[in-house]
């Protein structure tokens, strides 16, 4: 991916330390003394990621409120005509430092808060992300972050510490923005969810409370509960007797309960096997897993044998724990309603599996589910979730291509069709789980993409959805002449569907 940096200061030293990973390449690094004219002229030559480093409260430019408004307008214009990512820095609280000496401090903080609110409220396109520089400045203090003298001499206002922090943060943020989100957090128990070893210390001997030794573990559990609410799946992966762990959750009054964990691998087999089994049970890839343990041996074995799993160490040092909780792997790009409902959906899935064994045929099972589907066309309120599906869906995805909300909006604005599929059954609402994109050229249609969330697969809904769309197109006088499909290592289910379509086409019938 190509990156362009436009900055109102000399940003070279930060870029030099950053050293972008993987396929990230910085193509352009523009120093713009005047940021607005620069933004106005880049429209035709955008890279995949545009990074804007703007010192909104710059001490040497002293941007007026009118000029800040112009910058924000220009950023919005760039972002709206663009399918890539725009990253905007919020250099706040470091800038008016010098001029503020004349003002009182309270007034200055008020100004900063107002400016921050203006920036966040004005820049509301979904492909705009914020590079939280204010947080970095706060962590080391203004005096350790800014070298005003070098700012005046070379338009490079940072100290060495700040350059390193900016580079490290930019690296984490870029990794976060360009890799798929994590979906599940698997945690060890002893010395991870509580202090002590259950099998040795007993239930009375382990600690997870608001007091001294237990506080870190109590807070870690609170943190995990928060992550669950954001849509992460929680799982246990611990070498213990299952009955002991279950009893500990029942007896100890901890933030997390036994039922908060959707997968519970509490046994004496090795953690590699347990993680693999958990991935199979949840039907998600190991690369969507975070594994947290206190034990270096377990962490290393996972690193070695399952390198796709992200491992994190729970250290008993409180500062390390704070850093861990701030790690980007635990963050969501955008929390949607479907994420919040996801845990309920997985639970409903477990119930569905229970019925499977009591009915005699697959068709009988499907019929017993009372599946209801609802299909919308070009519904803009569906776009945030559909955009997320294009990024997250791997198995049933005809053309894996992450599309931003803006890209989908543009697709519709260009006169094309985006169908969204909503499904529910007697156990629960799956939410928006499918999308078909049809590009129109007169009365000829090209199916650009067809995807279904794996949550909804295996229920024959995909056939119904496909048939609905082809009928709807026929009703509009559109002839579907082409279906685009690209095989990947992961989209075997889509491939099977495509094969069935081809076979059906040869026999002259619809799927």
């Amino acid at each position, binding site marked *: 991916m190509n990156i362009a940096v436009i900055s109102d200061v000399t940003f070279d030293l930060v870029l030099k330390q950053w050293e972008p990973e993987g396929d990230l390449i910085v193509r352009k690094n523009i120093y713009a003394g005047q940021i607005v004219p620069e933004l106005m002229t880049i429209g035709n030559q955008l890279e995949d990621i545009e990074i804007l480093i703007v010192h909104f409260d710059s001490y040497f430019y002293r941007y007026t409120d009118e000029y800040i408004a112009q910058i924000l307008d220009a950023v919005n214009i760039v972002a709206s005509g663009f399918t890539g990512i725009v990253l905007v820095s919020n250099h706040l609280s470091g800038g008016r430092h010098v001029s503020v000496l004349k003002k009182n401090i309270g007034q200055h903080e008020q100004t900063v808060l107002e400016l921050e609110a203006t920036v966040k409220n004005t820049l509301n396109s979904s492909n705009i992300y914020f590079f939280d520089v204010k947080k970095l400045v706060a962590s080391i203090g203004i005096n350790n972050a800014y070298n005003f003298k070098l700012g005046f001499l*070379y338009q490079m206002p940072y*100290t*060495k510490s700040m350059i390193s922090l900016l580079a490290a943060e930019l690296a984490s943020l870029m990794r976060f923005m360009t890799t798929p989100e994590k979906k599940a957090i698997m945690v060890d128990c002893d010395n991870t969810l509580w202090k002590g070893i259950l099998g040795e210390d007993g239930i009375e001997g382990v600690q997870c409370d608001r007091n001294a030794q237990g506080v870190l573990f109590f807070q870690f559990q609170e943190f995990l509960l928060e992550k669950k609410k954001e849509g992460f799946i929680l799982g246990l992966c611990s070498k213990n007797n299952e009955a002991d762990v279950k009893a500990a959750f029942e007896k100890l009054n901890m933030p997390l309960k036994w039922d908060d964990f959707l997968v519970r691998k509490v046994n004496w087999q090795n953690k590699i096997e347990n993680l693999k089994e958990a991935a199979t049970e949840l039907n998600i890839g190991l690369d969507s897993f975070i594994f947290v343990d206190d034990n270096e041996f377990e962490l290393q074995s996972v690193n070695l044998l399952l390198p796709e799993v992200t491992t994190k160490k729970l250290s008993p040092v409180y500062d390390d724990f704070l850093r861990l909780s701030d790690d980007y792997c635990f963050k969501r790009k955008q929390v949607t309603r479907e994420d919040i409902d996801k845990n309920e959906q997985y639970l409903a899935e477990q119930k569905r599996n229970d019925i499977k064994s009591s009915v005699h045929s697959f068709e009988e099972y499907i019929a017993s589910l009372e599946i209801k589907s609802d299909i919308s066309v070009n519904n803009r309120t569906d776009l945030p979730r559909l955009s997320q599906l294009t990024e997250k869906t791997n198995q049933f995805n005809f053309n894996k291509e992450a599309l931003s909300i803006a890209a989908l909006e543009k697709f519709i604005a260009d006169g094309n069709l985006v169908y969204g599929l909503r499904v529910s059954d007697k156990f629960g609402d799956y939410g928006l789980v499918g999308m078909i994109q049809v590009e129109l050229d007169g009365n000829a249609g090209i199916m650009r993409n067809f995807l279904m969330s794996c949550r909804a697969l295996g229920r024959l809904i995909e056939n119904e959805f496909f048939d609905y769309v082809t009928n709807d197109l026929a009703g509009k006088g559109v002839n579907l002449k082409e279906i685009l499909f690209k095989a990947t290592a992961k989209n075997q289910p889509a491939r099977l569907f495509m094969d069935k379509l081809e076979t059906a086409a040869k026999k002259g019938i619809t799927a």
Partner: protein
Amino acid sequence: MIRNVMNESQTSELLKSVQQVFKLAMGNDINVDIDTEKEMVLEWDSLNHLNLVVELENSFDLGLSMEEIEELNSVRGIIDLINSRKSING
């Protein structure tokens, strides 16, 4: 005016540290000695000069004036500057 006198071993210690700072600022291949001047080093451009100032201020805990920054043109000058600061502070 206070004249600062350094013995040889002190100078060579300081030179070693300054050589390290040059590597940090301009890359590991950069080798300078006591007589090196700005125009002798191809890599010593304005951006790397800025980098050098950042690294020097950080490594030796110095706050240089704007004038000093613009006049930093030689390794000997850098060593003298660091040394004069040390004698004032010490």
